[in-house]
């Protein structure tokens, strides 16, 4: 905007306009700061006194085998869901990027899981994955023994399956938007050159789609590392499905160890922050290359 004469009200106007949102933000920010402060104490909900104990909670975590296992499960969960959802979503997006009969209906069906409360989606799958549920019935039809979907070794993979059902559409619609924004000319010349389909995919579609792929990975990483609802509604963290947020929830609201729980949350928060910073700078570079603003 042109800097016209800047009177004092012009200078303070933006702050004034933003004030209500800022008040809310500070209201939200305050608990965030408390979270950091409490993580440095031995705060227990059941005892009125608390002491500043420095980094003890953090150092204890690093010596705690259950902390490492829950961090490991969380990272594994995020890796599995992303490695399935992004390629599958890309496949669906490429299928949807055609003008054929019924395409609008397909596109709407695709976003139905995405609009559902995750905890409700998990409940639906819990009903389906019940011991005598429909899924085991289908499996029995092909002669296999019933699978204890939400118990023992299968539980983490079952929750990954629910996550895939819920969030593959997220990747698909982002990547579909990406496919639809790609320029036509490279494809036209590739066709003239009679380039094989796989070559076009490797050398044209994938590189041009990179910013969209990174964005899908970014959002899915952040949400997978914070996953709570799906686990709480299905296994409640039993049988090797103790993701970080679930274990922190129990630490705080079953054992009342607020300080310890918060230290775990701050660690996962730092992990999320670092990973997303890396992905965002990667995305920025990809965007610059895509829009040709690179120097």
């Amino acid at each position, binding site marked *: 905007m042109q800097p016209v004469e800047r009177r004092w009200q012009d200078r303070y106007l*933006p702050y004034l306009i933003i004030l209500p*949102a800022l008040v809310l*933000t500070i209201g939200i920010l305050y608990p965030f700061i408390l979270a950091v402060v409490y993580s440095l104490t031995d705060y227990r909900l059941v005892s009125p006194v608390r002491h500043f104990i420095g980094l003890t909670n953090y150092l204890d975590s690093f010596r705690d085998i259950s902390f490492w296992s829950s961090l490991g499960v969380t990272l594994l969960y995020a890796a599995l869901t992303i490695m399935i959802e992004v390629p599958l979503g890309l496949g669906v997006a490429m*299928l949807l990027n055609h003008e054929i009969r019924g395409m609008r209906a397909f596109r709407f069906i695709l976003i139905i899981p995405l609009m559902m409360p995750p905890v409700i989606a998990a409940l639906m799958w819990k009903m389906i994955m019940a011991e005598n549920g429909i899924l085991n019935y289908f499996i029995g039809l092909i002669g296999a023994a019933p699978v204890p979907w939400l118990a023992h070794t299968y539980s983490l993979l079952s929750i990954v399956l629910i996550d895939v059902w819920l969030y593959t559409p997220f990747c698909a619609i982002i990547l579909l*938007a990406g496919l639809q924004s790609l320029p036509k000319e490279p494809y036209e010349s590739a066709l003239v050159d009679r380039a094989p389909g796989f070559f076009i995919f490797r050398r044209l579609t994938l590189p041009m789609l990179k910013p969209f792929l990174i964005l899908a990975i970014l959002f899915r990483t952040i949400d997978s590392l914070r996953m709570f609802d799906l686990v709480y509604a299905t296994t409640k963290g039993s049988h090797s499905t103790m993701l970080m947020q679930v274990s922190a929830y129990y630490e705080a609201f079953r054992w009342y160890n607020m300080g310890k729980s918060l230290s775990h949350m701050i660690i996962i928060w730092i992990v999320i922050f670092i990973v997303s910073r890396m992905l965002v700078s990667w995305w920025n570079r990809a965007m610059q290359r895509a829009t040709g603003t690179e120097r």
Partner: protein
Amino acid sequence: MMKRSRYSTPKHRTLIWLALAGYAVFALFPLIWVVMMSFKSHIDIVSPVPKFIFTPSIENYRAILFGGQSVQYEAGQTDFLLYFRNSCIITISAVLLSLLAGVPAAYALARYRFRFKDDIAFTFLSFRFAPEVAVIIPIYILYQRLHLYNTYVGLIFVYQLITLPLIVWIVRGYFEDISVEIEQAAKLDGYSWWGVFTKIALPLVKPGLASTAVLAFIFAWNNFIFGLILGSSDTYPSTVGTLGFISYESVLWGQMAAATVITILPPLILAIFIQKYLVRGLTMGAIRG
């Protein structure tokens, strides 16, 4: 992207259609099965051979909405209507509050240069990425002290974590899309910033604004953890209430299925209206489709 001619043969089109139909079955099957379940009697639900054909009954819906004492169940859970109402109150108020505070903020972030602008914008965004438990624990402690625990006001405030970043970031993008010249022309005609904002800018972003509000509603509606921890049986939203059909003694499958169907109806119906704006909303405005 152009349709490549080699994929336009009838054979290819049939293959694409079949693959998509396969995915559609995967996407829809759980939903269809649970809808069927909600109309089944308890005997049909627990039958060892799944019943695809059965006599539909609205008993489950009657039980959760009006508390009918059905023969097959020990008791009907009658609180569901309260939970549904709680969801409506909390979600709609949270979205309205976010609109009131967030839309002017989005306008300022889009139009003005001022100090700390990027920091303020980033703070809004960072709420979207924080693990919820990290912020819920201090809020839980504060709410106990301030007597906001288990109140609508407390929940509406904490729901700002979901609705405010969404509205500020996405609506800011819509304001940025309006050309500055239109607003400057209005300014030369003697409009104050308020006049420009309400008479020029707001009408221009109306469709985007409406769709963002709907999306914020959907995300707030779908939330579970805030209600679980900061609410109690008076203020639970219906996501938490639906989980209540699992008790230690038994699972009321039929009623839970009916509650599931009722809970997912509002977001699914609203989703029909915002399809065009969905990509932009889901990526916090990073993709301006």
